[in-house]
């Protein structure tokens, strides 16, 4: 039991390391530098070179990376040369926004997709199933940068139910917070609903065809009891895996929606830092997202043992 877990954690650490190395390498290929951004268009080449030297950006790439890594493993992600803000403080400030968006979107997607999948799987090929599949196809093919403006147009501009942009922290009231979060969370959730629904529908149809389901029905159990007690649980492994992967992805991948709605989340922080070539901030945020991503996935992998007795038994043999 201990060895597989340690091996899984070791692999995760390697992934994080490779991701941060790749980020540094990619940013070094991009034109422009944070020194040019700080000094602005009036800068002379000499003043840019002097600032690069002061920030240590004239050092070889591997040296810069090792310096950063040595501090990062001690928990010091450094400070942005552009804003002076510490990377950890910036992450702590932005994480609640992104986390709330991701969790809200995921919860919305899970609730809606489970309901839709159950309806679809009860009578595959029925008009209801075909209708849900059609809607699901639409959701799947409409990216967030289309869904977002459409939601804004109808629900914010025409009906005035939600703000067009901006974020209200939960400290300013739950109502205001939910109003500012609901549209962006919905824009994110639409695609997730479609993919979750398709996956669960397929698994449910498969499970409903199993002998033990037929046996349960033969014992006189109701259709809904069999669905929720016997079919849904074994059909949800793929869904849990996907939800876990997507939660990690959403934490670092809500850039477009955060930009569309001007939300102060990790995605916006990352996008603006990349544009400004703020390597320290980008490295820190990416490392954090990578840790979170592989952490969530590791937990999902380990959770199989809790959900499925067969895996527990297989591991103990």
């Amino acid at each position, binding site marked *: 039991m201990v060895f597989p877990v340690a091996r899984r954690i070791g692999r995760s650490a390697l992934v994080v390391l490779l991701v941060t190395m790749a980020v540094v390498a990619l940013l070094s290929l991009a034109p422009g530098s944070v020194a040019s951004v700080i000094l602005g268009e009036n800068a002379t080449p000499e003043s840019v070179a002097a600032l690069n030297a002061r920030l240590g950006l004239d050092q070889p790439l591997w040296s810069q990376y090792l310096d950063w890594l040595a501090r990062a493993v001690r928990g010091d992600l450094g400070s942005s040369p552009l804003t002076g803000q510490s990377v950890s403080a910036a992450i702590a400030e932005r994480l609640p926004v992104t986390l709330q968006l991701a969790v809200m979107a995921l919860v919305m997607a899970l609730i809606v997709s489970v309901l839709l999948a159950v309806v679809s799987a009860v009578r595959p090929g029925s008009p209801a199933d075909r209708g849900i599949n059609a809607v699901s196809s639409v959701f799947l093919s409409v990216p967030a940068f289309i869904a977002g403006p459409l939601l804004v147009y109808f629900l914010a501009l025409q009906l005035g139910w939600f703000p067009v942009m901006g974020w209200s922290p939960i400290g300013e009231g739950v109502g205001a917070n939910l109003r500012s979060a609901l549209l962006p969370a919905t824009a994110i959730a639409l695609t997730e609903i479609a993919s979750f629904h398709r996956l669960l529908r397929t698994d449910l149809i498969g499970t409903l065809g199993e002998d033990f389901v037929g046996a349960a029905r033969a014992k006189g159990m109701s259709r809904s009891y069999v669905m929720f007690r016997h079919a849904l649980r074994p059909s949800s492994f793929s869904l849990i895996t996907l939800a876990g992967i997507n939660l990690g992805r959403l934490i670092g991948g809500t850039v477009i929606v955060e930009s569309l709605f001007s939300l102060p989340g990790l995605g916006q922080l990352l996008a603006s830092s990349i544009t400004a*070539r703020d390597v320290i901030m980008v490295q820190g945020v990416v490392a954090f997202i990578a840790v979170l991503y592989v952490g969530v996935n590791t937990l999902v992998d380990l959770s199989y043992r809790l959900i499925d007795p067969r895996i527990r038994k297989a591991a103990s043999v």
Partner: protein
Amino acid sequence: MIRNSRFRVLVTACAAALVLGACSGTGTGPPTGGPEPTGDPVAGGTARVLQITEPRNLDPATMGNSWAVNAFLGNALYGTLMTDDPRTGAVRYKMAESFTTDDGGATFELRLRPGLAFSDGSPLDAAAVKFNWDRTKDPATGSTSVNEASMIASSETVDATTLKITMVSPIPSYAQAVLSTTMNWIASPASLRKGAKTFDAAPVGAGPFTLEKWTRQNTIDLVRNPRYWDAPKPYLDRITLRTSADSVQRVNSMISGGADVAIDTNWRTLAKARDAGFLTDTVPLNGGQYLALNARRAPFRDVRARRAVAAALDLRALDIAVYNGRGKTARTLFTESSPFYSAEPLTKTDKETAQRLFDELAAEGEPVSFTFKAFASPEAKTTAESVQAQLSAFRNVDVEIDTVDSSEIAALYTRNDFDMLISSALFVDPEPRLWSVFHGDSRLNRSGVDDERLNAALDAGRTETDPEKRAAAYGTVQRRMADLVPAIFVGRSAPSAVAAPNVHGVQQYGQGSLLPEELWIQK
């Protein structure tokens, strides 16, 4: 009560001035598109304001005093030494009592109002101004106004309220450089010395508002400064600033009731705001946005290539592509309201001449082939695409577009590594901006055209104090620019504020610098 009587005095003065045809009560003329304000200013309330760009920090030297950057926030935190009437360029004194020269702009004396204080109670004196201007001048500060501050050779404090400055070379209209840049904002030296992190948490200025809280990329919350020198202003109790770089999002937010004021820069969304019943106020700046043609290298080293592209482009079609035809093309260097206005256009569309020049250059083995470095904004990209599309109708000319993001702009300018890009030259008085952008000795001369007669005319426009001789000098500047085509002016900029119908007191100065202390909300 005091406020009401002050306002009545202001209204009476303006009415009298209007009769004389020279009212300067509002910086940019009355806003258009909504009802006229009625009644006296009302104290209290919170204004939700949308700005275009969030500052990277609150250091006054590194912010930018124009509408597209952080003018509103800078004015709120640090107040203003001077403002102007952006229509006439007439200087108005605020925290400064006077800014005078008696030797044709070789030296100036800045006199501050007595008793000025920062929001922490410490005095705002001549030494504080000197400290801020010296910092701005230091290249290590990275100020957006380093060029204007570097026009000062030295400065000395005469007494608590008087600063004497000596210029590198005489510039009689230097007040314009001060008020239209971050030199207009003075922060507490003690506060600045504490370092960027401490300063950003609690910046100390003498503006009408102080910082309550800044959540980056979300809101900047400002509260009324009870020590503000021009009581009973500001009228508002609080301001909440949000940032959105997207003009459509800003105007949509206004329409949905999510904001009271928006700083705007796009002619198309301004028209949409007016159509929706909002008040809009646009500063009528001279100059505008131009396509800089790099004469340091081929193909624009040859003046015929520059003339060919200028003759090929239809500015009206460009405006339709970028602003749905709601923008203002810049056919002349100065707007009609300027004393330097000349009806002679800088460029004329002449497709036959353009094709002849393209063919001529191709026959000589130097076809016009260039890359348009387009910045990432939608307007810049559309402009580049429209230029490319228009030139594709001609033979022997080839245009590629390379989109660059903001981190590359500074490096592009520093190395002059471009063929064509969009830049801007915006001004009320042509000094010092026009000299900086087109004089051969200026580092900011994007095109690199260094013409003796153009330089001499720009020098004369800078140093001459006789209005007629200045006008003659700028007449020469326009003719030389039309002949040499260092740039193709494509459109006037739109330094604007959009206000909800119940918001009044919209006043801008300089390059679209909105004054927060004048805003009030009708309840």
